[in-house]
C-alpha cells in the first residue's frame, strides 16, 4: 500500500508553468537552420558510408607500382631464355632502374614456402632422363621504399613454383 498516495495526488495538482511562446519559435528557427528537418522516432538513422581515401590511394599506388614493375621485368632480357628444367613464377625485382619506378626503390623480397608436393617421376619429351617434379606453394612479399618521403610500399601475393629435378639412373 502506498502511504504517500494522498501527497502524490496533491503534487499532481500542481501545474508546471507553460513554456513561453518564444521558446517554441526559437526551436523552430534552430531546427530550420539545419538542411533537413529530421523526425524523431520515425526515420531510421542514416548510415554514414565513408571512403577510406588513404587506404584506397595506397592500394591504387601499390597496384600501379606492380604493373610498372611487371612490365619492366618482361621488357628486359629479350632473347635470353633459360634452358633449365624449371618453371618459376617470375619475380619482378632487382635490376629495374629506379627511374622506371618513379622514386620507389626495392628494399626487400620475402619468399615463404608453405607447401611442397612431390608429383613423381616424369619423362620430358626428347630426353631419356627422368625428372622428378616438385610443386611448391609460397607467398612472396615485395617491398619498396621512397627514400625521399620515407613512404614504403608492400605487395604480397601467393605463387606456385614447379621444379624438375634430374634423376640419375644408377
Amino acid at each position, binding site marked *: 500500500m502506498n502511504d504517500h498516495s494522498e501527497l502524490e495526488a496533491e503534487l499532481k495538482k500542481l501545474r508546471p508553468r507553460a513554456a513561453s511562446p518564444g521558446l517554441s519559435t526559437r526551436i523552430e528557427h534552430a531546427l530550420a537552420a539545419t538542411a533537413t528537418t*529530421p523526425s524523431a522516432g520515425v526515420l531510421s538513422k542514416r548510415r554514414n558510408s565513408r571512403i577510406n581515401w588513404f587506404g584506397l590511394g595506397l592500394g591504387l599506388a601499390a597496384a600501379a607500382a606492380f604493373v610498372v614493375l611487371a612490365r619492366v621485368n618482361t621488357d628486359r632480357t629479350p632473347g635470353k631464355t633459360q634452358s633449365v628444367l624449371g618453371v618459376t613464377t617470375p619475380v619482378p625485382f632487382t635490376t629495374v632502374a629506379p627511374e622506371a619506378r618513379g622514386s620507389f626503390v626495392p628494399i626487400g623480397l620475402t619468399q615463404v614456402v608453405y607447401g611442397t608436393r612431390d608429383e613423381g617421376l616424369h619423362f620430358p619429351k626428347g630426353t631419356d632422363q627422368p625428372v622428378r617434379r616438385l610443386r611448391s606453394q609460397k607467398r612472396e612479399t615485395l617491398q619498396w621504399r621512397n627514400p625521399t618521403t620515407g613512404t614504403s610500399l608492400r605487395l604480397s601475393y601467393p605463387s606456385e613454383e614447379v621444379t624438375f629435378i634430374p634423376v640419375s639412373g644408377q
Partner: protein
Amino acid sequence: MEDVAIDENWKVCFAELGPGLVLFARQFVRSVADAEDIVQDAFVRFWKKEHSIENRALLFATVRSVALDLLRRDARRARREANAALEVEQSTQPQFDFDDDSQRELAAAVDRLPVEQREVLVMKIWNELTFAEIGDALAISQNTAASRYRYALASLKKNFVSHE
C-alpha cells in the same frame, strides 16, 4: 504521437513535453530564461540526432547534460545558482501555477528538497517517467531512483505538514 512523420511533428511532441522539460531544467538553474535555453539546446540536439521521442530517458538525460555543461562552463553562473539554491525562500519566478496557498506551500516544500530528490520527483510526478526510465536518465539504478523518490515524499510529508 509515434505515428506522426511530418515536419511539424516536433511541435506536437514539444507541446506535450515542453512544460515538464522546462520544469526539469529549472531544478538546475533558477532563471526561467536559462531553463528555456537549456531545453531549447537539448531538444534541438535530441531532435537532430533522430532519436525516438519515446526514449524519454535519453531526452531528460540530454536536458540534464546540457544544464550541467552550462553550469560547468560558467563558473560565475554556477556560483550564482549555488547561492540561489541555498536560499530557502521561494524563487521570484515560481515553477508552478497555484490555485491556493496550500499549493504554494507545497511548491515551496518541493523547492527545499535536495536536487537529487527533486529531479527524481519532477520526472516521476510531472513527467510520468517510470523508475527504470529515471534510472537511465540519471545513470543510477532503478532501485536508487525509487529510493530517492520515497525519501523525497517522506521529506515533503514531514515538511509540508509542519508548515501547514
